[in-house]
């Protein structure tokens, strides 16, 4: 299998302008003559002398990116916001030029970087299919030939002659994807466009992409924040971080790596926390999270094991016994989802070390994806030693909890439970 895409040492630099901090007195005459000179230089595309660039900064959106893609591969590209994923796709789609490095591409590339590129709201569905197809590179004859298939995939037959501005957002996305899906490129690049659209549509798109790759041997580059979709569709995943390739490997490994921070910055200290009461005989110094292998994590996945680490300190030189520790998980509406406490989970601790960590192990956290806030408490019944509200926030994401590659709907409840169905 030959290489279809070869990326070597790719880099993209942007210039960031900063407002100059000192506005010292400058003669207007000088400003005008300098400005005229620079204008002339810029018009001719020549570089402006460094002196006037004191307030500009180089920003490397991508630096030293290298990887290879073979024909028929399904490669996922993941990374935090600002990692450089969209910039990479733009360069591969020839929308913008790289600053360094090179890319070799064999075959026709079709990119879906935005849904409905070129759609004009005043034109009807039928007209927009032709327009969008032409913009994406299809010949008119080709569009005519595939017209019925496209309409069929998008399920908008009734609305073909209505202006697109009257379409619902779901119909809009379906139509846009339908045109792009029938492009028959050798390489298909998809940026996070499937986030819009219901679950059924997303499944349809994923199936179509799988078909296109498996049956017709086309290559797919897929950028997404939906880890479930990435795990299901892709065979290889590239992790981008701050413009560089951090890792390339199997979906499971790379997704795990994505969730682990580079430095243990997940610890939070809260000397100045707002909602904090207690006599501080025992006080918390920080909260952090670990997975079952004691590796620090910043994000939890529904259904996976997680440990909450509470660092504490005893004020006086005393070893307390029988202390009660509690951790409460609240959703953003302030509702308590569940409470963990050693007093009712059946563990008692004698002679606690003066300084140490308390671990709360949850074998399989049932929280639905979202953001949660933690309250932490320690003390005896009747004596609160340290009680901090909103001590920490935990983001929970779906890493394909139900192992179907599909994302359950947004309002599927506060917790997800494993289950299966049967006909009887």
């Amino acid at each position: 299998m030959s290489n279809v895409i070869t990326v070597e040492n790719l880099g993209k630099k942007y210039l960031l302008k900063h407002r100059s901090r000192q506005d010292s007195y400058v003669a207007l005459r000088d400003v005008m003559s300098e400005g005229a000179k620079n204008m002339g230089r810029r018009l001719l595309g020549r570089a402006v002398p460094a002196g006037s660039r004191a307030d500009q900064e180089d920003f490397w959106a991508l630096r030293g990116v290298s990887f290879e893609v073979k024909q028929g591969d399904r490669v996922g590209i993941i990374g935090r916001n600002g990692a450089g994923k969209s910039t990479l796709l733009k360069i591969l789609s020839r929308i913008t030029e790289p600053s360094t490095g090179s890319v070799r591409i064999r075959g026709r590339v079709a990119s879906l970087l935005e849904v409905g590129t070129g759609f004009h709201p005043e034109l009807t569905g039928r007209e927009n299919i032709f327009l969008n197809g032409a913009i994406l590179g299809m010949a008119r004859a080709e569009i005519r030939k595939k017209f019925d298939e496209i309409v069929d995939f998008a399920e908008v037959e009734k609305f073909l002659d209505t202006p697109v501005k009257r379409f619902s957002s779901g119909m809009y996305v379906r139509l846009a994807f339908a045109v792009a899906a029938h492009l028959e490129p050798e390489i298909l690049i998809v940026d996070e466009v499937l986030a819009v659209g219901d679950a059924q549509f997303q499944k349809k798109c994923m199936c179509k992409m799988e078909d296109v790759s498996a049956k017709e041997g086309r290559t797919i580059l897929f950028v997404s924040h939906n880890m479930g979709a990435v795990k299901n569709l892709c065979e290889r995943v590239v992790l981008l971080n701050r413009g560089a390739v951090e890792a390339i490997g199997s979906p499971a490994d790379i997704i795990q790596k994505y969730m682990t921070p580079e430095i243990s910055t997940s610890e939070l200290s809260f000397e100045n926390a707002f909602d904090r009461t207690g006599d501080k005989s025992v006080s918390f110094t920080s909260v952090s999270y670990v997975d079952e292998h004691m590796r620090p994590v910043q994000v939890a996945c529904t259904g996976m094991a997680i440990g909450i680490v509470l660092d504490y300190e005893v004020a006086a030189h005393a070893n307390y016994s029988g202390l009660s520790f509690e951790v409460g998980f609240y959703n953003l509406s302030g509702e308590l989802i569940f409470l963990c406490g050693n007093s009712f989970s059946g563990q008692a601790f004698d002679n606690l070390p003066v300084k140490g960590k308390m671990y709360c192990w949850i074998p399989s956290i049932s929280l639905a994806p979202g953001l949660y806030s933690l309250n932490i408490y320690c003390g005896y019944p009747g004596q609160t030693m340290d009680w901090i509200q909103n001590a920490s926030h935990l983001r929970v994401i779906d890493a394909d909890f139900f192992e179907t590659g599909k994302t359950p709907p947004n309002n599927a409840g506060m917790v997800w439970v494993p289950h299966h169905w049967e006909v009887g």
Partner: protein
Amino acid sequence: MTEQQEIIIKPGMGALHYWRDLWRYRELFFFLAWRDILVRYKQTAIGVAWSVIRPLATMLVFTVVFGRLAKLPSNGVPYPVMVYAAMLPWQFFANSLAESSNSLIDNANLLTKVYFPRLIVPASAVIVCLVDFSISCVVLAGVMAWYHFVPDLKVLLLPAFLLMALLASFGAGLWLSALNVKYRDFRYVVPFLVQFGLYVSPVGFSSSIVPESWRFFYFLNPVVGVIDGFRWAILGDAFPVNWPGFLLSSVLVLLILAGGVWYFRRMERTFADVA
């Protein structure tokens, strides 16, 4: 399957594939023009009529102001016909300039999301104006019939002058659209240029009234050659073309076009970053 040609993307590269891509994307020229025309007609009730009303109205005003009041000579040809024959290329040029200078900015969403040779965008703007031009031609035929004015065989040379008008507007359009992306000031320069040009070009008057000493500077206006040519082709020897001046204008048109293509291609790689 299909072609397995390799494309190499490197900084500063692009020229190799560009002209091949222009051919491959040739249908896009017409699709973008088709889109703009469709949209225009969908939104207005008098969309088609506008292409007729505009030149007719200007012709009327010019006839009254310059023909009756100022009594500028029209060399034996009915004044409205003389004005209209010059208005035709001028309107085409002015509209093309206005449309193409804004074309890149108006299509900014395309520039940042899809790849296609960007030269197509200002070109399709010029094509839209070509459609307006053809409608105006029909009106001209009507005006000439009204005055029982029959053109001689020189009218067959009209396509040559039309080509020159096309090149002139496309060349200027390339410059302005590329400049407009980076320096939005040009958006305001264009209407001013058009206004100014209307009085400096032989639309309301004929080139014969320009005094000898001013001739050289006069012919530096590339549109002059085009309009003179049009007048001569349609109206005959009453409006002789100053051939040296015409040559000067033509050379200028070609220079502007070549410069426009060069500048556009040079700035093209930054469009997606700046638009």
